[in-house]
C-alpha cells in the first residue's frame, strides 16, 4: 500500500491534522467558555482557569424559561419520527407504482414530483401559512409535520423510484402468482429490500428536519408554546447575543445530545448518506 512516498503521506496527514484542529476550535471554545463568567470570557477567551470554572451558567441555561432543552429535544424528535414515518409510508407505495408503470401519465407524475426538489422551501412559507390557516392547522404540531413531510416527498420519492426500478420485476410477478395483493407485495416483499435507500432517505430527511429553523419559526410561531431545538435556541439567545454567559452554555447544552448521537451513529450515518446520495 505504499502508493505515495513517505514524505507526501506525512505532509497529507499534517495538513489534515491542522485542518481538523481548525474545524474543532469553535467546538473547543464553545465547551470551555460555557464554564466561565462574562468577565473571564472577555479577558481570556482561549484558555480556562479550572479553579474559576463554574457550572452556574450552565444551570441557568438549563432552567431557562424560554427554552427547556428536554422539551425542545422531545418535540424535535417527535417531529423527526412523524415526518419520517409519514414520508416513507406515503413514498414507498407511490414509488413502487411509479417505477412499475410504464404509462406516460405515470412518467409525467414522476417528473412533476421531481420538479419539487428544486423549490427552495423556505421562501414559500408565507403562502403555506394561508393554506394551513385554511385547514385549521396553523400554529399546530400536525401542521408543521404535514408541511415538512411535503418538503421531503419529492426527493424521497425520486430516490425510491430509482431504487425500485432496479429491483427484479420477477419478485412482483411471483408474489402476484402466489395471490399477494398489491399492498402486501409492496410492504412485505419490496419494502424489506429497500432498506439501504430507506436508511439514506431517513438520514437525509432527519438532518433537514433537525436543521430547519425557518419552518418551525413561521408555522409554529412564538405564541404556540411549541418549539424545536432551533427555535428554542433562537428564543433563548437571539435577543442576548452579547451576553456570552447565555450564548455559550445554551449552545453547548443544545448541541451535546446531537453530537453524542452523531458520533455514536457516524458509521451508519456516513455509509447511509453515501449509499443513496449519488442520486443522479
Amino acid at each position, binding site marked *: 500500500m505504499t502508493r505515495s512516498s513517505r514524505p507526501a503521506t506525512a505532509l*497529507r496527514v499534517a495538513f*489534515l491534522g491542522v*485542518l*481538523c484542529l481548525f*474545524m*474543532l476550535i*469553535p*467546538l473547543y*471554545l464553545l465547551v470551555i*467558555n460555557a464554564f466561565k463568567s462574562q468577565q473571564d470570557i472577555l479577558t481570556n*477567551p482561549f484558555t480556562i482557569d479550572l479553579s474559576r470554572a463554574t457550572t452556574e451558567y450552565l444551570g441557568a441555561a438549563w432552567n431557562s424559561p424560554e427554552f427547556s432543552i428536554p422539551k425542545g429535544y422531545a418535540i424535535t424528535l417527535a417531529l423527526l419520527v412523524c415526518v419520517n414515518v409519514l414520508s416513507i409510508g406515503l413514498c414507498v407505495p407511490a414509488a413502487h*407504482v*411509479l417505477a412499475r*408503470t410504464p404509462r406516460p401519465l*405515470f412518467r409525467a*407524475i414522476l417528473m412533476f*414530483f421531481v420538479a*419539487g426538489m428544486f423549490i*427552495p422551501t*423556505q*421562501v*414559500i*412559507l*408565507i*403562502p*403555506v401559512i*394561508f*393554506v*394551513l390557516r385554511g385547514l385549521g392547522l396553523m400554529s399546530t404540531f400536525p401542521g408543521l409535520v*404535514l*408541511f415538512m*413531510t*411535503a*418538503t421531503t416527498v419529492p426527493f424521497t*420519492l425520486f430516490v425510491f423510484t430509482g*431504487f425500485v426500478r*432496479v429491483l427484479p420485476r420477477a419478485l412482483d410477478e411471483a408474489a402476484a402468482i402466489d395471490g399477494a395483493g398489491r399492498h402486501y407485495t409492496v410492504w412485505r416483499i419490496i419494502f424489506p429490500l429497500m432498506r*439501504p*435507500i430507506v436508511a439514506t432517505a431517513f438520514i437525509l430527511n432527519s*438532518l433537514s428536519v*433537525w436543521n430547519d429553523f425557518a419552518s418551525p419559526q*413561521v408555522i409554529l410561531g412564538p405564541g404556540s408554546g411549541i418549539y424545536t*431545538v*432551533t427555535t428554542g*435556541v*433562537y428564543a433563548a439567545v*437571539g435577543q442576548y*447575543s*452579547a451576553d*456570552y454567559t447565555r*450564548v455559550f452554555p445554551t*449552545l453547548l447544552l443544545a448541541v451535546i445530545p446531537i*453530537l453524542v448521537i*452523531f458520533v455514536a451513529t*457516524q458509521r451508519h450515518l456516513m455509509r447511509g448518506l*453515501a*449509499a443513496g*446520495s*449519488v442520486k*443522479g
Partner: protein
Amino acid sequence: MARTLTKTVPERAAAAPAEAAGPAARRGRRGWRGWRDAGARLTMVAPALVLYVGLLVVPVGYAVYYSFTDYNGFPQQIPEFIGWENYQRVFQSADITDSMVVTGTIALVGAILVNAAALGLALLLQRTGGFTTFGRVVMFYPHVLSALVVGFLWQAILGPQGVVNTMLEKAGRSSMPFLSDPTWALWTLIFVISWSLFGVQLVLYLAGLQTVPADLVEAARIDGAGRWQTFRAVTWPALAPTFSVALITSGISLLKTYDVVVSLTGGGPAGSTQTLAYSILAVSFPGRQIGLASAEAVVLIIAAAILAFTVLALRRRAEEGAESIG
C-alpha cells in the same frame, strides 16, 4: 449498492422501454380493465400527490397569485390586483436589488468554496483508515449543529467583542471588523455558511470517488501518468455526475440562506448581508407586504430553477460529448 444508484437519469430512462414489454404493460393497454388497473395504481400514488400538491405546489401557485396583488395578509382583506407593480418594486428598490446581489454572491462564491473544499478533502480522505474516519467525522460535524447554532457560535467568535478580536487586542494588534464592516461581513458570512455546509458535499464526493474505476487509475499510473494527469483524465470524468449533483444541492442551499443570517449578522451592518430569503421572511413578511414578499419568492424560485436546469443541461451536453468520443 452505491453503484446501482449512480445510474444516471438517461440510463434509467433507457431502461424503461425494456420494462414496457413486461406483462403488466400488456395488461395495462387492454381497455376497461386496464383503466381500472391504472385507477388502482393511482390510489397508491394519490396520498403522496395530495400532500405534495397541497403544501408545496399550491403555495407556489399562491405565491405567484399574491405577487400580482396588494395584500396585507389579514383574512378580512381581499387581495387587490395590481399587475406587475410588485415586480417593479422588487427590481427598483435598492434594498431588494442589493439583497439579490448578496444572494447571488453567496450562491456563486459559496458554491465554488464549498465544492473546492469538499472535493479537495474528499481526495485527501478517500483512503480508509482510523485517521481518515476521524477526519470525515470532524469535517461533517458542523452540519449536525444546524446553521442557526453555527451562526450564533461564530458570532461569539468573530463579533466585535468576540474571541478573535479579544485575542488580537491582547496581542496589541488592532481588531478586525469581521462582522462590523459591510464588505467584511459578507465574506465572513460566506465563510461561515461554507464551513457549516461542505460536509454534505464531502460525503457526496467520497461516494463519487468510489465509482472511479480502480483499474483505470492503475492503468493510467502504469502508463506513467502523473497525479494531475490521472485526476484530469480518469477521476474527474468519473466524478462528473457527482459534481453536478453537488453543485445543484449546494447552490440551492446557498440560494435560500436564511438561518445563518438571522444568527450571525441579522442582515447587517447596513443591510450588507441581507439575502433574498432573509428579506422575504424577516423584512417584507413582518411588514405585512405579502404581495412584495411573494414577488421576491417567485424571483428566487425562478433563480433556483434556472440554476438546476442549467447544470443539468450542461451535464447532458457533456455526457453526449463523452459518448461521441467513446
